[in-house]
Every structure is written in structure tokens, then in C-alpha cells.
């Protein structure tokens, strides 16, 4: 047989082995990996660390996470694992009919992460104190109980997790307490469940962890109506048109599948997308939103920030600070959770929004921080 042909073949092998190094050296574009992860630091070399072998281990670990074409290799492996063996990341659950869940959503639905009732009661008492104080400053407080995929898609929870063995959840506790104290709140969890059977469009997607992009036009519309009813003012309305159906999800609608990082697995669902527009009529309120990732969907797909004034802020997990100005929401930095924004009483509205798994820290630390700032103590309002 032709030696030249064999030499070419072996050259291909060598080039294949060098390909990642070539990609890294020349920065050849490649797709990134989805999901949040901490990058590995490149280790600093010293005689000591070389001699005891720690530098070599750290460098090998660093190389393991940074070599070229690594995203492709991970995607190939995850594609095989998911499609052949139905395997997902730890922290994720593959439910019936291929519904993907984050484990935390199932645990919170089942009440496994429930905080003691007294703790929840204490939080709501503090919130009521804060609300009373803010009212004196003409600032309104509004709590949002966002839906959770564990509740909305409970019928797809796998049997081995025993969805029938449900305990009281944080959601039920907070719902009860908010009702009792008369604090203004919107229960989107209950509302989504109420319209679940009659909705002709997906309110939750098979592969997403958040409410669907489509559903957010209900969310923003309902929210603006609630806010306007609390103030008695009117500053505009939402309209929606130009609905489109697609087999390809937009960003966020299959975020769980995205972080599985496969070669591209489709759910077969039909996604609906709609153009949402806010029509301002009057002075827009300056709003401070403190919430979790559920807020992003109304921001990205529900034109939420179009209905608020410049200077409004979004504190993502009460940690990342985003400020709205001239039609743009930009990150301005980060803050400690224990820090309260200096101009907190300068907002017209303060909205706290959490989905079920995050209700164990309802308010993302804002309630504790602001209450401490106001009272100088952690004691209950009744003890002040």
C-alpha cells in the first residue's frame, strides 16, 4: 500500500492532536459553554510549588478547563449522555416526558427546603414594618410570588421523587402570612396554576426553568395594573401583537437544556413569541426591583423596564446592581447583600420578586438589611 497515503493519515492524527493547541494559540472562534461557572485561575509558578508538585497539579487542572475546542468535546459528551442515557447534570432532574427541572424547584414544591413558620412570620413582620415606614416616605412596597416549575409542572416530576409526599412549602407559608398581614402582593404562582389548563400557549417550556417568554406579557400587564391600582394613578398600558410560532426557542426558553451543553437538542415544542409594547401615559414611576432570575424574563421579553422611569434599579439577588437609563439597563457594579441602597426611599415602588426555591431567603437579604438599618436591631417589631 502507498506509504504516502499512510503518512498523510498519520499527519492527520498529529494535526488532530495539535488542533486544540492551534485553536488556543490563534484564538480560532469557537462556541462557548452556557451556564455559570467559576473560571480556573492560572497558577503562579514558584520553586516551592514546583518542587512539591502543587504547581503541576494546578496547571494540569487549569489546562483541563482552558484547552482549545473543549466546548465541543463537552457538547459531544453531554449529547451522548442525554440522548443515549438520559443523563443530566447533578442538580438537574429529568422528569417525565423529558421535562427538565432544577432539583431545587422540586424540593421547594415538596416542602423539603421549608424554613420554620416562625422564621417566615418574622420576615413578614419585618416587611410589614418596612412597608409602614416606606409609606411615610410615599414609597410603595409590593411582593411578588413568582411561580415555580416544580409547582406548575408537578405532573412531570418523576415517581421516584415521590411527588405525592408533599409537605407545607415556603410558598404556602408566605402566601398565608402576606394575606394575613395585608401586605400588597401578587401571587403569580396561583394565577399561573389557575390558567394552566386553559392557556393555549406555553406558560412553561419543557427545557426551561423560568416562566416562558410568551407568558411574560401576562406578567407585565398584570403587574402594571396592580401597581396602578395601588397608587390610583395611571401611567400607561401594554399592548401585544405580531405573535409568531417557532420550533426554535429564544434565549431563556430552554435555558436548562442550554446549560446541558449538548450539540443541540430540541424539545419538539412550539414556542410562541409576541411583540410587547408599553404605551406611556403620564409620569412613570421610579422602581427598585429586588429579585432573582425570574425578573429577567419580563425584562428581556416583557418590556418591563419600558414602564418605569430612568433611575430605576434592578438588584439581582440583592447583589448585582443594574440601573435603567435612556432605555438601557446596565450593570453598575455589585454590592454586599447587607448594604441598603442609599436612595431606597427615593423610589416610588420597591418590588420584591422571588420564585419558590428562593423563598427560603425571601427578599434576598434586603428585608433583614433594611430592617436593621431602620431599627438598629434584629429584634421583632413587637419587641421594639
Amino acid at each position, binding site marked *: 500500500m502507498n506509504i504516502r497515503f499512510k503518512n498523510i493519515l498519520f499527519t492527520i492524527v498529529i494535526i488532530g492532536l495539535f488542533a486544540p493547541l492551534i485553536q488556543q494559540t490563534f484564538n480560532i472562534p469557537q462556541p462557548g459553554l452556557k451556564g455559570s461557572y467559576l473560571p480556573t485561575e492560572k497558577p503562579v509558578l514558584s520553586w516551592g510549588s514546583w518542587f512539591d508538585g502543587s504547581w503541576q497539579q494546578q496547571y494540569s487542572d487549569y489546562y483541563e478547563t482552558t484547552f482549545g475546542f473543549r466546548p465541543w468535546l463537552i457538547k459531544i459528551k453531554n449529547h451522548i449522555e442525554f440522548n443515549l442515557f438520559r443523563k443530566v447534570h447533578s442538580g438537574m432532574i429529568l422528569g417525565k416526558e423529558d421535562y427538565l427541572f432544577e432539583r431545587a424547584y422540586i424540593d421547594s414544591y415538596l416542602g423539603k427546603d421549608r424554613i420554620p413558620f416562625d422564621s417566615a412570620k418574622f420576615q413578614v413582620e419585618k416587611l410589614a414594618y418596612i412597608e409602614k415606614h416606606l409609606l411615610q416616605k410615599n414609597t410603595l412596597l409590593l411582593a411578588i410570588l413568582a411561580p415555580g416549575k416544580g409547582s406548575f409542572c408537578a405532573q412531570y416530576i418523576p415517581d421516584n421523587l415521590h411527588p405525592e409526599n408533599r409537605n407545607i412549602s415556603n410558598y404556602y407559608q408566605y402566601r398565608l402570612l402576606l394575606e394575613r398581614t395585608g401586605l400588597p402582593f401578587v401571587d403569580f404562582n396561583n394565577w399561573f396554576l389557575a390558567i394552566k389548563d386553559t392557556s393555549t400557549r406555553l406558560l412553561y417550556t419543557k427545557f426551561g426553568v423560568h416562566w416562558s417568554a410568551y407568558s411574560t406579557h401576562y406578567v407585565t400587564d398584570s403587574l402594571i395594573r396592580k401597581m396602578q391600582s395601588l397608587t390610583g394613578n395611571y401611567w400607561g398600558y401594554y399592548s401585544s401583537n405580531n405573535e409568531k410560532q417557532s420550533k426554535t426557542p429564544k434565549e431563556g426558553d430552554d435555558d436548562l437544556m442550554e446549560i446541558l*451543553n449538548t450539540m443541540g437538542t430540541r424539545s419538539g415544542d412550539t414556542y410562541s413569541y409576541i411583540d410587547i409594547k408599553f404605551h406611556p401615559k403620564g409620569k412613570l414611576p421610579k422602581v427598585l426591583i429586588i429579585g432573582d432570575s425570574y425578573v429577567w424574563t419580563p425584562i428581556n421579553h416583557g418590556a418591563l423596564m419600558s414602564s418605569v422611569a430612568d433611575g430605576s434599579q434592578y438588584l439581582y439577588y440583592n447583589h448585582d446592581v443594574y440601573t435603567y437609563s435612556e432605555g438601557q439597563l446596565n450593570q453598575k457594579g455589585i454590592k454586599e447583600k447587607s448594604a441598603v441602597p442609599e436612595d431606597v426611599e427615593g423610589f416610588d415602588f420597591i418590588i420584591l420578586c422571588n420564585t419558590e426555591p428562593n423563598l427560603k431567603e425571601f427578599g434576598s437579604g434586603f428585608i433583614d438589611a433594611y430592617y436593621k438599618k431602620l431599627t438598629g436591631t434584629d429584634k421583632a417589631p413587637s419587641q421594639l
Partner: protein
Amino acid sequence: MVFSSSFFILLFLPLFLVSYYITPSRYKNYVILAGSSLFYIWGAPKFIFVLFGSIVLDFYLAKFIYNAPQLRKKWYLILSVSLNTGILLYFKYANFFVENINDILQSMGYKQIGWIQVALPIGISFFTFHELSYIIDVYRGVKPPLKKITDYAVYILLFPQLVAGPIIRFSEIADQIQDRKNQLNVDSALLGFFRFAIGLTKKVLIANTLGAEADRLFGLQAEDLTFATSWLGAIAYTFQIYFDFSGYSDMAIGLARMMGFVFPENFNNPYISQNITEFWRRWHMSLSRWMRDYLYISLGGNRVSTARLYFNLWIVFLISGFWHGAEWTFIIWGAYHGLFLVLERLFLDKLLLHTTKVIRMLYAFFVVVIGWVFFRANDLPHALLFLERMFTVDLSSFYFTLDFRILCFLVLAFIFCFMAGFSRIEKFESDVFTFRNTKTAVTSYIVVGLLLTIISLGYITSSSFNPFIYFRF
């Protein structure tokens, strides 16, 4: 550095191979020396001096042995063997001996010996055996000593076999160290790469998957360990250790082939053996050969009384077990296999001849699986607990759902382990690994090899990637 890492496959290996191939023949050994030294230093920088020191020592001792009169030859041999085994005993077994002595002292009410744990140099079991092989082969006149210390260093440091074997006797490789032009060609390179890819796949896909399951089952608390889970754990480990070890050997043989070295085979479908004697002709063959040539024959081999022969066999296996690790469980494993070897010679083989091939294979597999429980268990009480569960029949314990992925790999492992029990398939397997000189065959080797390498790399690198959907603070 391990072969089954992205760092080795995508950085060290291509850089080494290119350096090796472009270097003129007379300097290739220096490239091997540099690459192998870097390979060892990367994992164990402190111990390279132990290795270099023993290389220098043994090289000159071998020269003295070769040139010395007969009586002094023996003394030099004794000196070298003592030094090498002394180094091995110290680094690998000192902790074990001191711990056991301290246990005895404590039980007798005496004060324990103060001792700082000794760290174990990587690969010491293997390079010590290589050094002993060199010295003994020179002493026996099988091969003259190498003229250049750098050539001897190549034999000891050669990275494909440095840290995990196969154990290459000096006589098997002596000529290749100095001249391997006939083996260093593109055919060897292609076959070597294919062999490496096969080994990588065996290790990463099959062994690691079943190993994780074995770890889980061997880690169960006593109250959770049942008849079913103990057997599942034992069988998972049985397959894990085969695919792990044989996979690593395949990678070593493949790497060596790419460099022009032809290593002897280390495994030959051991689980199709029909008795334990045959098992040891198929399992870790390089160790068996070493033990036979340098220990068993030194003890008298077959030229002793029957009782002495059986005793020698048992001792060799006891030492084999001890060589694997400084734990009582390894010693018991070795003694257990030695016992069955003796029993087979005594009467078991004659008995088994009256049965079928399948029964004999089941017998051998059963004995081996039980032996692996000792090998894998954390300690002797753990091994005994595991065995106790394995022999406490409880069919209701099978009522559990086996993970589909584990089941697939168990079935795959079973097929690959036992299919060679059929002579036609054994021949086919042999054909696959014999280089066929057609365009289709060669292209197939490379395409399959590259695909397997890519998939294996995916599994290697994914183990460190488990992202959150969003950060939570």
C-alpha cells in the same frame, strides 16, 4: 501525569511525538530521556532524585557484575538486589510494617514506635522490577550490560511503562533500545495510535463508569449492603479493574509502538480462563513472566519436590499480592490465588475436566470475582462483611432499579470480556489488532481511533464541568 488526561493527550504527547520524529535516529534516545524525565518530574518532582540515583547505582553495579569473577558477581548481585528491594521495602512497605508493629505493641500494652509516614514515589514497584530484571539478566548472561548510561536510563525511564507497566524484562527490550529502525515506521505509528485510542476508551468509558458504581457500592454502609448490591459491586469492580488495567496497558503498548518499541502483551482475555492457572497466563502477563523468571525459577522452579513446588507457587503469589499494595487485603488476595493454583494442581483440574467449558469458565470467574473483593475492600473487616453479604442469599434484594447507563456498560463489558470465549471471535479480535495493509482497513483504524479519542476526551474534560444555571449569592 496520566495518559488519560487532556494535558497528556493534547499537549505532552503531540509535542513529544513531533520532537521525536524530527530528531535524527542517533539522538532519539535523548528525546525519550528528556520527555520521560519531564513526564516523571511533572507528577513527582522530589522523587526523580531517587530514580536517578538508583539508575546510576544499578548501571555501574551491572558493569561490575559483568566484568567481575564469578564469586564477586554473586556479591554484587546480592548487593544490587538488596539495595533495590530495600528501596522498595522502605518507600512502599515501611509504613505498613511500622503500623502493624505498633498495633502489636499497643495490644501488648507497650509504647508505640514514633514514625513519620513515608511518601511513595510514583511507579516504584515498576521501575524497581525493571532494575532487578536488568541486573539479573546481566548476571545470568542473558544480555550484556548496556554501554551507555543514557541507554539504561531510557530502559528505566521510558514513560509508556514507567509508572504503571507493563513490566518489560530487559531481555525483551535490550536490542530495541539501541536499534529500532525496523519498527520505527508509519505502520507502527498508525497501529500504535489505534491501540492507544482503544486503551483510552477502555479506561475512560468503561472502567471509569463501572468504577464509579463500584465505588458507590463498596462505600455503602453495612445496613445498606445487600445480597444484590454486594454482587453488583463485586462484578462492577471485576470489570473496572480489567478495563482500567488492560486499557492502561493498551495505551502504554500503543505509545511505545508509536516510538518504535514493541512491548509484549499484558492481557489476553483473562476472564475466559477455564481455571486459575490459565487466568494467570492471561492476566497481567508481564508480572507473571517476571515472577516466573526472577522469583519462581530462583526458588527452584519445577526442579524441586512436589511439596516444595507448591510452597514456592504459594510464596510467589503471596509476594505478588504484596507487590500490589501494602495492605493485608492484597496479601490475602495473593495467597488466595496461590491456594487455588495449588488446589488445581492437586485435584481441582482433574475434577474440572469432567465438566463443560462453560462450567469451567464460571468456576474461574467466580474464584476471580471473590478474590477481587479482597483486592478492592478498604480493609479486611470490610472484605469479610462484603463476602458475608454475597453469600447471604436474599433474592428480594434484587428489587431495585439499575441505572440504565450502568446496565449498558455492564453488558458491554460482559460482551467484550467473554466474546473471545468463542474461538471465531478470538480469531477476529486477533485480526483486528494485526495490521492489515489495505487502504480501507488503515483508514478505518484511524477514523475509529480519532472518534474514540474525541469521545474519550469529552468524558475526561466533562468531569470537571458542572455549571450552575445562574449564580446565586
